[in-house]
């Protein structure tokens, strides 16, 4: 038995953001929201956070460390060879270290994004409502079988009050996957 969702459809970014705020304040659990472009207020309202910047910093440190280790090992340990009277452990290594830090951090940040988000080539896109990629904002609220009728009515009337254009009740697509936090 598939899950049923109550979906509020909005078409204005500010109305939508206000609606997310109101629905959240009233204690209703918002399962997910879909947007055609990022509305930054919604991130704050839903309290979403990401640790990606921390990871990028760690990648950068790894990048600079590995690069220096490699340069030091090749130039000082493995085959010490003087070039133009410069010291073996040369200050000019900084340039390669600088660039390689960016290289490693960029590539791994890019990959981390896809791995964490679990998207990639070949992943099937399962849309709750295809219009959300064009011009509609969706608020998805899960309908629990144990919910009482009053509770469902409260949800629908709140969605209506906050300026939704449509309220749809639809079973969730079979292959729709929940996002990790």
């Amino acid at each position, binding site marked *: 038995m598939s899950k049923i969702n109550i979906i509020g459809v909005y078409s204005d970014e500010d109305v939508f953001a206000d609606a997310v705020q109101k629905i959240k304040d009233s204690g209703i659990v918002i399962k*997910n929201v879909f947007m055609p472009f990022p509305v930054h207020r919604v991130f704050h309202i839903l309290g979403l956070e990401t640790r990606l910047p921390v990871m990028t910093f760690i990648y950068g440190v790894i990048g600079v460390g590995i690069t220096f280790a490699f340069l030091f090992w090749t130039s000082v340990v493995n085959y010490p060879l003087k070039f133009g009277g410069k010291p073996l452990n040369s200050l000019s290594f900084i340039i390669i270290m600088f*660039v390689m830090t960016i290289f490693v951090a960029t590539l791994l940040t890019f990959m981390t994004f896809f791995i964490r988000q679990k998207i990639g080539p070949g992943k099937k896109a399962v849309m709750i409502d295809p219009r959300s*990629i064009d011009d509609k904002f969706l608020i998805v609220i899960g309908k629990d079988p144990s919910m009482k009728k009053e509770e469902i009515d409260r949800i629908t009337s709140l969605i209506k009050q906050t300026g939704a254009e449509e309220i749809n009740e639809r079973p969730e697509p079979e292959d729709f996957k929940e996002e990790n936090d």
Partner: protein
Amino acid sequence: MYLTDARGILIKGNKTYSQVSGDVLRPLEAKTPRWWLVATFISSLAIAWGIYSIYVTISTGIGTWGINNNVGWGWGIINFVWWIGIGHAGTAFSIFLFILRQKWRTSINRAAEAMTVVAVICAGMYPLLHMGRVWDAFFILPYPNTRGPLWDNFNSPLFWDVVAISTYLMASAVFWYIGMIPDLAAVRERATSKIKKAVYSILSFGWVGTAKAWLRYETAAILLGGLAAPLVVSVHSVVSMDFATSVMPGWHTTIFPPYFVVGAIFSGFGMVLTLMILVRKIFHYEDYVTERHVDAIARILTFISLIMGTAYATELFMAWYAGGEYEMFTFMKNRATGDYALAFWTMITCNAIIPQLFWFKKIRHNLIIVFIISLFINLGMWFERYVIVVTSMSKDFLPASWAQYKPTITEIGIFVGTLGIFALGVLLFFRYIPMISIHEVKAIIKPTTETNSRKHE
């Protein structure tokens, strides 16, 4: 006065979100236009000539080029630096303006990034071909080998170049691609044919646009932008060190790294302007790339042109003030006057003088003149590299070893080939990828059209 927004309305015509998708995706959904086929055919011919020239270079040898013992770097390196400069468009334009939160970049950044990727590919070919024995190109990579192992010279700018340019290509491609994912999803959802839907489905990585996805997406984009911004400065600094760390008169100067970086951004913006004026005309994007966009780029170019002029003047002044005999000869007798005076003055006129016309509002708003000036900038920047590479090498310290340099048909063929690659890349981009960033444009419509009214509240 303080309440008025400097840029005004960025997207004209009170577009709805749906209209934005429709407008941007129209060229992708329409039938292939005839001009596109013709242009693709012409650029393919250019590529064919380029491939033939590369074949001649590889099968016969580097002797088919006009370079000689003295002038060891000819068109190969001139064009390499020129393309890298153009390749600074995407990063300089989209990343600097992205980090500075300049909203007007949204209609242009995608095209600029596409240009960058293609231009850097074009640039990367030249050093490889210049090696002569292309099949030994992997020697440049530091791999454990049976010769010791003898590692690369990690103090050499030529090695830094390899690292910097490959990183730059990777970073700009990654930044470009991540920016496209939500828009490719928009193409997927609107696609009617099965094949198109399948292809864009793979390309869009199964993007659906949940809140968490958007948060991670935006964070990733700003992180990648932040990482790539110093790269913009470092890549061309490293390219300039190929020259500046030598002892050649005219190359051995401390001004080179900033001078090259500014020059690169100058030529990049010049190419962006050339391309965007064409795009807005051909695809009827007047509502997205407004006169204000062109105006903003023209203003930036005016400023950069002043820096370029200052750099040229500084070089001449330092040659005179330092009193070095060889520097004096290179700058005064070999560049400003003498055999290469024409190239030198073309460079000065195109880069430092003509763009100053942008001070006049009338000129900034006349798109035909702006277009012509942007072509002059592209030309001028090519001549700058010509002047730097050829003058210093052809007449160095020992008059007995002076030599002239003239490109051969093979070198010209390779250059035309890369022009073809660039044109074809851009044409494919116009046809198959949304050339304006749809989600970013949608996000700025409401805030920017209402800026004025909101500020008065």
